[in-house]
């Protein structure tokens, strides 16, 4: 729907399968993230391991489908499974700053280290493999560390392909969730003041008030917008006139991407991953001779 988030409906499906898609989105759709940090110099007050952890959590805009998983125990990495980034920055005093200034932004150069300072260092033949690639962090303005004059950070990072069940930093979504479509039924006509009270019980847009022959009559306009606040049940006069239910096979998914891949691609990938799981076991069945 909007940039980076997608809301879609999946109708006529069971929770078992809807939940499988959600779980795969969270934990099994791969992305690239910083996994190894080689610290050549770090005189900032951020300790090496904290810095490494912070760098790991930065989303990297690189299509994971272009890369392979790194083999277990492989410490080196090659152009097919690793992306290398460098972060080399030193803070210094600004000689032209006003004497009486106390603003660090004016007094110092490079005192804020942002994700935009990370630069891609191609490995092997990556410049030929990805001629028009632009590998960089999704966001330019993630604050990584603060420096004071004389302090510097000089690190090399290796990004590898991984999945969210190994570490949450690999998760391609900020959230992926589903809810059931609300179903609101008015058991009796609700009119005038009661209709207005009823309208206030729900989220804006759920209940509409129509004017029929000089009477205000409440009508359910868009049950989808309801949040199941159950506010109506606090009103003695209304609680027996309204039935709140859910459409049991109508799932409203909402997928919010971290920005590495568009959300619709993530959903397609998740479905393909579940198919891959089935295929893997079917192959197993065929390869084992049955007696």
């Amino acid at each position, binding site marked *: 729907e909007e940039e980076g988030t997608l809301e*879609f409906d*999946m109708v006529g*499906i*069971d929770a*078992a*399968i809807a*939940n*499988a*898609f959600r*779980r*795969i989105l969270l*934990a*099994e759709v791969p992305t690239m993230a910083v996994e190894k940090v080689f610290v050549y110099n770090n005189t900032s007050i951020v300790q090496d391991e904290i810095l490494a952890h912070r760098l790991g959590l930065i989303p990297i805009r690189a299509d994971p489908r272009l890369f392979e998983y790194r083999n277990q125990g492989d410490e080196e990495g090659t152009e097919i499974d690793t992306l290398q980034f460098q972060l080399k920055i030193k803070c210094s005093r600004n000689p032209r700053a006003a004497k009486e200034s106390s603003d660090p932004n004016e007094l110092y150069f490079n005192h804020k280290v942002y994700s935009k300072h990370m630069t891609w260092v191609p490995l092997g033949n990556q410049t030929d493999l990805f001629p028009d690639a632009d590998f960089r962090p999704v966001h330019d303005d993630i604050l990584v560390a603060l420096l004071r004059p004389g302090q510097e950070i000089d690190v090399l990072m290796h990004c590898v392909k991984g999945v969210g069940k190994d570490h949450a930093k690999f998760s391609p979504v900020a959230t992926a969730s589903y809810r059931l479509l609300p179903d609101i039924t008015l058991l009796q006509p609700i009119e005038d003041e009661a209709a207005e009270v009823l309208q206030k019980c729900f989220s804006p847009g759920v209940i509409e008030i129509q004017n029929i022959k000089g009477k205000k009559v409440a009508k359910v306009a868009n049950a989808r917008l309801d949040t199941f606040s159950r506010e109506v049940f606090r009103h003695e006069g209304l609680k027996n006139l309204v039935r709140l239910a859910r459409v049991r096979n109508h799932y409203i998914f909402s997928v919010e991407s971290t920005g590495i891949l568009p959300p*619709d691609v993530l*959903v*397609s990938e998740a*479905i*393909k991953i*579940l*198919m891959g*799981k*089935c*295929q*893997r*076991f*079917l192959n*197993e*069945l065929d390869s*084992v001779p*049955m007696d």
Partner: protein
Amino acid sequence: AEPGERSEVQADGTDGSCVTFVLHDEDHTLGNSLRYMVMKNPDVEFCGYCITHPSESKINFRIQTRGALPAVEPFRKGLNDLMGVCQHVLNTFEKSMKEYRAQREEEMQVAFEDGSPHGCV
């Protein structure tokens, strides 16, 4: 065990109609959706799964069939059915995504034409 490796456990004194499949490197994601698909099969008397231990990444997937049907058959059918469901969901999703994109483009086009100055000289 290799990821995705499958092994069968069969209790003594039973035939092939009661089998526990051990699915390595799997969890509720495949376990529950596959259980749901297998349970739809009327030949299946019982189907359930459990995660052996939180620190082991494998599930025991149990199938018992009615009569003499070997348990492998509903297992295979369940996997195939789940594949079919996924394929259907994928096709439907990509189709509606394409429709949505086309509709959005059309709306943008209309908005652009409305806002352009050539209509009001």
